[in-house]
């Protein structure tokens, strides 16, 4: 597992006051981020916990992509049609993958992007912010 850089980034973010910790489930590491802000309404709470899968070769340049939202959640009193991916159980909690990615030609770029910037990218989902190529 090549994630020393991810560990270091998470430690720095945590030291700076962000609620983030490294969780390793089986062979898969995640950044568990607490308190990602969301507007109420349409969301049913002001902040959510999310999971960001850390590629096992993150240090070698494999990019971050997407995230998981903690369940349950409500969006406009129902479900968000982009919370439609794989469901996983991590730390005895249920999570579901969100189809929120980097646009073509503007992907996660090693050396510029990192876990910090990816968390902000994920927060953009809750705000419907910067959603290019949206298919709502």
């Amino acid at each position, binding site marked *: 597992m090549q994630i020393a850089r991810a560990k270091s980034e998470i430690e720095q*973010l945590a030291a700076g006051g962000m609620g983030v910790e490294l969780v390793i489930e089986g062979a898969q590491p995640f950044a568990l981020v607490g308190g990602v802000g969301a*507007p109420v309404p349409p969301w049913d709470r002001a902040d959510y916990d999310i999971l960001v899968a850390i590629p096992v*070769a993150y240090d070698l340049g494999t990019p971050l992509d997407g995230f998981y939202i903690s369940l349950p959640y409500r969006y406009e009193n129902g479900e968000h049609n982009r919370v439609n991916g794989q469901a996983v159980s991590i730390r005895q909690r249920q999570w579901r993958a969100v189809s929120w990615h980097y646009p073509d030609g503007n992907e996660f770029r090693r050396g*510029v992007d990192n876990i*910090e910037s990816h968390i902000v990218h994920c927060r953009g989902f809750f705000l419907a912010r910067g*959603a*290019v190529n949206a298919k709502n």
Partner: protein
Amino acid sequence: MSADRVVELVEVEKINVTDGEGNEVIIEETVLEVIEEGREREDAEVTVELLHDPSHERRHFRIAREATLLEVLDEGAKKLGAHLLPSAEKPLDLLRGVYKDHQVGEPLNLELTLGEFLSQEPRTHHFAVELVLAIRVNTRWRVAPEKEMTPKAILALADLPWQEYSLYRCDGVEPLPPDTPVKLHRGEHFEAQRDGKYGAEGCGADRKG
């Protein structure tokens, strides 16, 4: 029997201010220290004011000579009703000495103790707290060089390429126009985001690296 006391003149300063009716007034401020004779002073009286505060409102307090100038800065800011950014432990804010004729010196080394500083010439017990225009982009704190900056310049300040990132006010939904200057406030929080799209391959958990 109480110990003999000695009154030591620390500082006399004349300050030009304008009163409420527009008249120029000279205020003479004297700082005295009262110490017990024969006893080594463990603390010192200091005066602080905010840099560029036209009222020259000041606060006086005693603080241990062993305290660092960082602690003087933190305590001084609190006395002046301010708090340091981004934190009291690692502030971007500055402490400067105020010398004769209200000449303000260069930013001080905050690792020095007050005692070390007071042993140097020119000597002063009078400090100015400089609250810088600290802004935050994501988790990155920076000192803004201007009161108004374009989002492009703010992103560059945060070492993020404006060609790839959009800048938003915290909780804002619409990106700030990249070339339109934004008026900045101390402590303001922006978010720089690589924008996103719905619908693509599965999440990274499926990856094997």
